[in-house]
């Protein structure tokens, strides 16, 4: 074999290895979670680990969705009421945060790119710099602020905190999207008689759609996965999301691995659906044909 083909085989083996490691790294925990959620409680504590349960059981899912179910031989109340409330809370806070964040970023990033005002770049740097502030450092003052505004344990309060946390990233992303767009398109629209706002909404935003979608995906996933903020600001089921509810299945004497994992698996379905849906619009080449 020539050194060249050896080299190419070596490259392929290396690539395959890297992909395998990456897949195990990212899908491994999910697989483990699926398996655990399908394993009976007694098998879960057996000393020999298994990659697939000996008997597949749906009892954990039954406890999640049913009205009543058996747990350790006793009939218990199902967790569905709490679980469904938390699922709705997660959906609402994430959706509101995403809409607000992307909406604000879409307009303000444009101002940072196309409008001239004193301190424009400094202001932008300051906003983006807040990304570097750890959430822990502002938690206590923020809590006092939210109490005085009576916003603790409200959708509005939690969503607003999410917006303040995720807006800088979305703003940064949208700014670079707008910067990459040819100014002549907007100038053509102005000369055609369009106002700046009309131009932004009807010409710029449709062409910036992939950027807006990407910002929406990032924000939604970020909001969906939040733990610390809702742990502090969503004390009751009025706004408590799944990320805070699920760890509560850990009791004083008993860790309900099966239920935790079943709930976890259900909890990743909405973000997966959102990403799959939005990804369809994340097409490139929208700008093709504009110039030259």
């Amino acid at each position: 074999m020539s050194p060249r083909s050896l080299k190419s085989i070596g490259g392929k083996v290396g690539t395959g290895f890297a992909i395998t490691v990456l897949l195990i790294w990212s899908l491994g925990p999910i697989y483990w979670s699926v398996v655990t959620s399908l394993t009976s409680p007694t098998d879960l504590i057996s000393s020999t680990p298994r990659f697939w349960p000996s008997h597949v059981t749906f009892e954990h899912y039954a406890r999640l969705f049913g009205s009543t179910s058996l747990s350790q031989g006793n009939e218990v109340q199902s967790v569905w009421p709490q679980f469904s409330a938390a699922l709705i809370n997660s959906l609402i806070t994430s959706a509101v945060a995403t809409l607000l964040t992307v909406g604000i970023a879409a307009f303000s990033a444009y101002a940072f790119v196309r409008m001239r005002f004193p301190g424009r770049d400094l202001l932008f740097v300051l906003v983006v710099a807040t990304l570097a502030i750890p959430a822990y450092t502002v938690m206590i003052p923020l809590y006092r602020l939210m109490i005085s505004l009576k916003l603790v344990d409200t959708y509005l309060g939690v969503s607003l905190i999410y917006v303040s946390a995720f807006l800088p990233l979305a703003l940064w992303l949208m700014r670079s999207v707008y910067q990459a767009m040819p100014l002549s398109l907007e100038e053509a629209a102005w000369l055609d008689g369009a106002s700046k706002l009309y131009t932004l909404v009807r010409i710029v935003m449709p062409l910036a759609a992939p950027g807006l979608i990407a910002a929406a995906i990032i924000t939604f996933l970020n909001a969906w996965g939040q733990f610390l903020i809702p742990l502090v600001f969503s004390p009751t089921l009025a706004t408590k999301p799944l990320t805070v509810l699920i760890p509560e299945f850990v009791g004083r004497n008993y860790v309900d691995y099966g239920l935790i994992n079943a709930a976890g698996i259900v909890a990743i379905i909405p973000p997966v659906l959102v990403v799959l849906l939005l990804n369809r619009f994340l097409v490139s080449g929208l700008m093709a044909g504009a110039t030259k």
Partner: protein
Amino acid sequence: MANLAISGLRKNYGTVEVIHGLDLTIEDGEFISLIGESGCGKSTLLRMIAGLEDISAGTISVNDRVINDVEPKNRDMAMVFQNYALYPHLTVAENMGFSLKLRNVEKAQIKTAVGEVAEMLNLTPYLDRLPRALSGGQRQRVAMGRAIVRRPQVFLFDEPLSNLDAKLRVQMRVEIRALQRRLGTTSIYVTHDQMEAMTMSDRIVILNKGRIEQVGSPLELYDRPANLFVATFIGSPAMNIFQAIVERGEGGTHLRIGSARFRLPPQFDIGKDATVTVGIRPEHFEVSEPAGAAGEDKLDFRLELIEPTGAETHLYGAAAGQMVTVAVRDRLSFRTPAQLSLSARPEHIHLFREKDGTRLGTL
């Protein structure tokens, strides 16, 4: 219908001034070209007229109304951009009808107007396509159509043909000119291509470093360039420039260029032993061979290279100690190198003041 008056126009970027007080009047229906090297301010001037750049000082008026502070959207000017700037997510018809839609023109009326212009530009089969499905030339036409549909007071063209291939460029040049004649709309056309400017314009404005060097009809610029810059800028290949010494002796004053001496008519009042700059266009030389027959007014020319272009033959070589280009209509078959003589008729020998390049006249 609009005439344009530009007066004392200046543009600064910070402390750097890029346009230094321009004055220009453009008549109603006129086709005027702004031409100059890159960075001369021609595009900036056009964008100031369009309202896309702020005016630092001076005024721009349309029909005697100052429009300095009028928003671009209210200036009633249409612009064709160098990169076309078509809305990529709108169809050809929507692109062309965009400005009418903004003015709340009825749908049926927009359709008729777009249809008429599309017919004019041979775009009818493409009305439902997106710009990405069009060729470069078709996109250029859509950009033109978008400007025409709204019947603006003024057309502004920013190097609209520079992205097309040579053949299409010539074709579009003719079409744009014919359309403009038909519509009679005042047009300002920015280009760096002097052929475009020469063939299309009623008048040409030559800009250099933010100043107007000369304004005139194409042939005026060619025949009577106001200064050395215009003389070397207009014409291809460029005018040959020589330094000539004024000799005063028996039999009057003469101008010496290398081996040749030309009689200097008395109207030129140039000091003795002074030098003047002489310009002769490549196509105004007459070539004769060989040097044996050299007369007073013949310039020794050492031919180094012959370049046939089909219609013309370009000769490159040295005369009076510098590189000289000669363009002739005949197909010459000299061997290179060769020793030849060049002569030119007095009315084709341009004189410029050496100090500042201002035109003095022809011999």
